[in-house]
């Protein structure tokens, strides 16, 4: 498709049009990003930058308390959030998307209903569940007692053993609406003739899903998985609403973003900026590294499936 570019703007005029966005972006995005990269390489006394210390802040992060304990623990919790969201979206999410795709009636209605939690603010979702799970008046425990499961009713967010699972489940409950929408759109874009051809060849519903639909959906599943990973690693509002900035009880719901927030703004340590910038860089490198590696690996999976 060759397009005539007769309407091209002269470069000086184009630059003039670009100026407002470039200034705003340069001052509030590029400049902070560039300076942030250097923050972790210096020692700080409060807000004053002191000496260049190389990788000392990173060494401190991995060898001194409380970071030595809190960093791997928080990271493990983020990984669990990812695992929970992936499990939900590729079982319940995929199943619902396929079921909806096979029917015309009420498809839109169900899509909207299923996506509702995703449309509500994550902070509101977190606080809502903290109320629903309250040991004093929480409808969840009341419901369990009403159906005779008194033994199961408990202070969900007060017990370190259950609190983390609450965060995982609430996060998955909210997030699953997004993959569901994307899978639905991808299924809608598939060529129906492939299904018909498989059906004529005598393939059953399960076989058609495994050998026709799934391979065609694989690229979308891969893309959504990367987005789910980034989302899980940066999770902040839901853990904050359910466990506060310290990840209570006893750090059971701590995640990377909370660790960063505490270190930067509530630790009181004189080198707070140096160490917290190191936390942010580690998190960023993990996100970029894993996303790139995952995308490469997934292309291989795609090839094997098709």
């Amino acid at each position, binding site marked *: 498709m060759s397009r005539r*570019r*007769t*309407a*091209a*703007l002269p*470069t000086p*005029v*184009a*630059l*003039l*049009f670009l100026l*407002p*966005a*470039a200034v*705003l*972006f340069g*001052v*509030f*995005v*590029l*400049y*902070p*990003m560039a300076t*942030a990269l250097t*923050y972790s390489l210096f020692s700080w006394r409060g*807000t004053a930058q002191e000496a260049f210390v190389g990788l000392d802040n990173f060494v401190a992060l991995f060898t001194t308390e409380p970071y030595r304990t809190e960093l791997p623990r928080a990271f493990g919790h983020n990984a669990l959030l990812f695992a929970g969201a992936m499990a939900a979206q590729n079982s319940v999410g995929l*199943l*619902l998307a396929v079921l*909806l795709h*096979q029917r015309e009636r009420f498809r839109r209605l169900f899509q909207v*209903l*299923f*996506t*509702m*939690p995703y*449309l*509500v*603010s*994550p*902070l*509101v979702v977190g*606080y*809502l569940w903290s*109320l*629903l799970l309250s040991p004093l*008046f929480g*409808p969840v425990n*009341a419901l369990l007692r009403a159906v005779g499961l008194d033994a199961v009713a408990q202070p969900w967010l007060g017990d370190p053993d259950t609190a983390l699972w609450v965060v995982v489940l609430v996060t998955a*409950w909210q997030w699953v609406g997004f993959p569901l929408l994307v899978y639905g759109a991808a299924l809608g874009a598939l060529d129906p003739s492939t299904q018909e051809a498989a059906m004529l060849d005598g393939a059953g519903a399960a076989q058609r899903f495994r050998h026709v639909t799934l391979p065609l959906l694989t690229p979308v599943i891969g893309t959504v998985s990367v987005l789910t990973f980034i989302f899980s690693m940066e999770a*902040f*509002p839901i853990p904050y*609403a359910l466990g506060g900035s310290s990840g209570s009880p006893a750090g059971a719901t701590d995640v990377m*973003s909370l660790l960063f927030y505490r270190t*930067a703004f509530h630790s009181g340590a004189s080198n707070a900026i140096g160490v917290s*910038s190191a*936390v*942010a860089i580690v*998190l*960023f490198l993990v996100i*970029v590294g894993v996303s790139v590696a995952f995308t490469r690996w997934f292309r291989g999976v795609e090839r094997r499936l098709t």
Partner: protein
Amino acid sequence: MSGTTRRGGAVRRAGVHVVLWGYAAVALLPLLVMVWNSFRTDQELVSEPLGLPVAPSFDAYREAWVEASFSTYFLNSVLVTTASVLLSTAVSLLAAYALARSRSRLMTVIEQVFVSGLMMPVFLMIVPIFYLLDMIGLASTRTGLILVYAAVSIPFSVFVLATFLRQLPDELEDAARIDGAGPLRTFWSVLLPLVRPAVATVVVFRFVPIWNDFFYPLILVRDRERYTLPVGLTTFFGEYQTSWSTLFAGLVIATLPLVVLFLVATRQIVAGLTAGMGR
């Protein structure tokens, strides 16, 4: 044989219905409980945790709106979100026009810089932004928050708008130029009416995350008078711990504008799309 398949089909259909309605309940019930508990009193919530609002009470809303300063948070959120979305859409539209209609190599590079911002590490940037605002005298102000939100919205907005503008044919602009219209005039009278659907998309898709955002104001705004709704919610949950129905009302207030936006925006987006097609 055909009888069993038919029965199997019926069982299967019933199963599908159970799954669909079952998950609809899982997704929706917590949100419904949020709404109807906001119309009940604390005493009702304790004595009957699973009850419905028999005699709806609006006390919780009055309490949240007046006593718990939700009116202030709400106005701040409306102001900050609207201003930052307008600002970012305006500057992004000008930039996208330049990027889509220029043949210079320099523009390709600039576009890549903008779009690379889609992957920006917010945790990494927040401390420098905090000091930057302090340095230019905008610490803990709504203006500072607006400028930051507008700036971080640019990558997404430029990306969507430039993609859309490239799909528009050049002929109308050619005609305008032959008629003697300058670039600004062409942009204003010819392109602006055509890009309305893309603008609607950008506005909706930036409004929602900014309205919901909690991270930037939590760190950048220290003054309670300037809190937006999400940060307001956190202090509110600390102070009104025992007034549960008020807490439910606060959550509903924070969610309501998004519901309204979806209702209004669907119409606007559809109208914009059909208007674009009619021309």
